[in-house]
């Protein structure tokens, strides 16, 4: 019976969740900044590049 290495499994899924979740949060932030005039300054650089 081979070892299960659950630590690595957690690490792998953790990385995936962090990456995908992080991107989702970025999208939400970008969307919000479109609607808020104040955030327009930060928006300009990130949206089109």
């Amino acid at each position, binding site marked *: 019976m081979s070892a299960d290495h*659950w630590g690595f499994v957690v690490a792998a899924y953790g*990385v995936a969740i962090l990456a995908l979740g992080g991107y989702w949060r970025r*999208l939400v932030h970008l969307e919000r900044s479109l609607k808020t005039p104040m955030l327009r300054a930060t928006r300009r650089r990130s949206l089109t590049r």
Partner: protein
Amino acid sequence: MMRSLGIVAALGVVVAGIVAFGLAPREVTQGNVQRIMYVHVPAIGVAYLAFILVFVASITYLWTRAPEADHIAHAATEVGVLFLGVNIATGAIWGKPTWGTWWTWDARLTSAAILFVVFVGYLLVRRMTDDHERGARFAAVVGIVGALNIPLVHFSVYWWRALHQPPTFLKPGPAAASASIGWSLLVCFAGLALLGAYFVTKRYAVLRAHQQASA
């Protein structure tokens, strides 16, 4: 509409998680570490779909110069690079306990890494070209050449490795094609693909809204 896609995507991811950890069997040779495959393999599948979209959208953009096509290409590249990154990272993490090393220059990891750099190049070109429209044109060319290169990369890297694979080399794949593993993989792919589609849609919407706001 985007909201419902988002909800469906979230559901898809949850179902995928349940299948990956609850319903998929414990693999015989590797044990439970093999479950990493349920995020590793679907990730590259989604990335490929994304890059195919980049290819089509880039050609469309150069043909029609419709900004929508450019937005799709841009959004799809970001999502493709994201999922490819997940594929590479999870592949390395899977490799450590099964191969004993974080990185081996095996065919799949190497191909993925090359593709990653190619499409990061797409994003770099956009970022580093002063004129936005020009950057979009240049990026489209990079996207087209990059996508055309995918089969070439695959063959060349596979052939390169095939002659030098040590006979005891173990690949982190399931020991035998088991039906339940196949189904689990499909479900997880569907879940991740829905998430990818949601991301592309949302990113496209943001790009479009910004373009219209500054028009």
